Each structure stands twice: as structure tokens, then as C-alpha cells.
């Protein structure tokens, strides 16, 4: 949308800014592809979960964590292409109103990882307008990095689910997540205090 007065940021930089603010063992769900690659590259935490498939399910997985642990704040990182696959999830989250869930959408308008093809929404749809229309009133574009950090600070004290959309460049992810799904899941459960290591 050409009406957005937002700076084009960088996924790894923005993700690193989020991770630097996590002081209370907040859970973070990284969506498929570059989104979780940059979460990995920002420095592994026991409370990080990395998706190696199931495109579009970062927000539903995060909703499940948020419902299971209402006392823990949960962040979910998702790409715009992934979100387009599961827009109905926004309404589900709006209906359930988990106080502890914050969604972050990295919007570059392309499927970067498959060759930077344009998404069907590129240039025509507005992620924040979709989120608000889905019932998530607490949704906003981050104008720049400082504004993103301010929105994350607000999210830490939020009493309703929120969505932060970030316009990003078309750079690939900085790292590559180790593709070991059982270990990822098990360590995440340790990080959430659900299990002890053997």
C-alpha cells in the first residue's frame, strides 16, 4: 500500500531488537523459513520454537502456548506470505482474546525464500487493516525501528492480543536453524518448564 508511511526495515535487525527485550522467559514462535532462521540467528533461547514446515501456523501454535500458559507472554513471528495462508486464525485469536499473545508480521510482499515472487497481496492488501477487520483492534504498523521497540514495550503490558506489522526488505535470513524437530520441541518444553531433561 503506497499510503503507508513506514520505513523499510530488516528482519534480522528487528528480530534482534525483539529478542534483546525479552527478560522474562517469554515464548517466541518462529514461522517457517526466514522468519525462524533470523530468530535462530538472533541467538537461541530455550523458549524459542522453530517451525520447519506447516506454513501459516505460527500464530495458531502461539495461541496454543498462550492458552496453556496464560502467565507467560508469547510472541509469534510470521511472514506475510505465511499469514495469507491462515487469515482465519486472526479471527480465532480475536474471539478468544488471549491477553498474553503478540503477533509480529514481517511483510516484504514476496516469497523471498522461493525466489522472491510477489505474494497475491503485494501492493493491494494491508495486513494491519486485515487484522483490525478480523477483530484485532490492537494492531499497528511499526513506523521505524524505534517505533517497533515502543510497540513491543507496549505489548509487554498489553491486556489484549496485539499485532505489529513491520515492512521489511527482501534480504534472506541470516542463519539456518538446525533441522532437528524432536530436539527443537523437547528443548522448547524444557524452556517452558513443562519437562525436565532426562
Amino acid at each position: 500500500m503506497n499510503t503507508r508511511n513506514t520505513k523499510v526495515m530488516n528482519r534480522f535487525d528487528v528480530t534482534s531488537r525483539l529478542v534483546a527485550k525479552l527478560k522474562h522467559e517469554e515464548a517466541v514462535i518462529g514461522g517457517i523459513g526466514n522468519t525462524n532462521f533470523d530468530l535462530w540467528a538472533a541467538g537461541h533461547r530455550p523458549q524459542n520454537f522453530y517451525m520447519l514446515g506447516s506454513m501459516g501456523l505460527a500464530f495458531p501454535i502461539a495461541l496454543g502456548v498462550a492458552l496453556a500458559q496464560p502467565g507467560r507472554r508469547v510472541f509469534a513471528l510470521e511472514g506475510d506470505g505465511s499469514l495469507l495462508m491462515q487469515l482465519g486464525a486472526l479471527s480465532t485469536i480475536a474471539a478468544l482474546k488471549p491477553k498474553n499473545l503478540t503477533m509480529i508480521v514481517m511483510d516484504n510482499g514476496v516469497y523471498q525464500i522461493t525466489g522472491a515472487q510477489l505474494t497475491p497481496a503485494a501492493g493491494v492488501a494491508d495486513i494491519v487493516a486485515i487484522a483490525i477487520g478480523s477483530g484485532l483492534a490492537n494492531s499497528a504498523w511499526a513506523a521505524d525501528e524505534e517505533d517497533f521497540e515502543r510497540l513491543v514495550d507496549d505489548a509487554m503490558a498489553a491486556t489484549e492480543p496485539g499485532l505489529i506489522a513491520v515492512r521489511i526488505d527482501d534480504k534472506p535470513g541470516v542463519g539456518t536453524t538446525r533441522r532437528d524437530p524432536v530436539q527443537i520441541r523437547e528443548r522448547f518444553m524444557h524452556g517452558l518448564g513443562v519437562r525436565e531433561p532426562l
Partner: protein
Amino acid sequence: MAIAEQRTSPQAAQGSEGSWHGIVLQTLKRNEISLIPYVPDRVLTPLIKNLHADPFFTTFATAREEEAVGIVSGAWMGGRRGAVLMQTSGFATLANVLASLAVPYQIPLIMFVSERGTLGEFNYGQSLVCRTMRPVLDSLALEHHTITRLDELEFITDRSIRQAVTTQAPVALILNPLLTGGKVFDK
């Protein structure tokens, strides 16, 4: 006899202990499964209604079945048990999430599938999509049971839930029209 009663009497939906849906609800509760996202189905209506009415459960509709799978997977990792309710046609949308989330991450995903497409189906598309269900389950070597008898329902459901949790593997419990009465043309 019990089946015929359930199909004709709406009162049967009010949590009657011996009905198929009453047994499913009690078995879920006994196994501490409290999060129930679903995509609705006519046959599941009394179960869904009674789950909504019971404050032990958090019961809600999702837009798609794979969304519900994502939710209960996240909840499992956060220490809360869930189960997904759906219809046969909904199961047909799940191959990707089963193969890329539930199976490789070893998540005890518990699915209840109301079986359409057989024993009196009136919609050709339903009967076709039903034929894809067991081959998909078998291709991933997933545990599944087709429940046809009321007297076997509790045993199969209870044991299957326990097995899913202890072996960290998904299970599909297929609720056959012989158990539920199914959906017929005049409904």
C-alpha cells in the same frame, strides 16, 4: 437402539451418560484433555454443545482444521492437553500439517473424525474424500481406529489417548455412522 434414540431425540444431547457423545466427553475429561478446537459437523453437534456447556473445557471453532492442529500442538508443548474435532472432509486438509508438524515433532495429536462418505452417504464428493482418509493415515503409519460399537467406544478412546500421550504419537479416532447414526439425506 441407542443409536436410533440419539438420532431422533434432541434430549439425548443433554449429556446423557450412556450416549456416544457422553462417553467421549467423560473420557476426555478423565484424561485431562481440556482444549477442544473444532470445525463443526452435524453429527458432532451434541458433543460440541455439551463441551461448550461444561466449564472444564475450552471449546471453540477454528476457521480450518490445520489451524486447530496448530493450536493443540502449541498447547501440548505448553503443558495443556487438547483434541481436535472434525469431519472426514476436514481431515483431508491435514496431510501437510501431519507430515511437517505432528509427526516429526512427536506431538500426541488426538483427532476425532466424524465419518462421512459411507453407510448411506448422499453427497458423491463426501464419499470420494472419505476414501483418501485411511490411505493418508496409513502412509504416515499413524495409529487410527474406526469405532462402530458403543460398548467399545470408551475402551478404544481411553486407551488410544493414553497411548498417544505415552508414545508421543498422533492418533485418529474415526466415529463411524454405526456408532453415531451418521448424517442422512432427510436432515
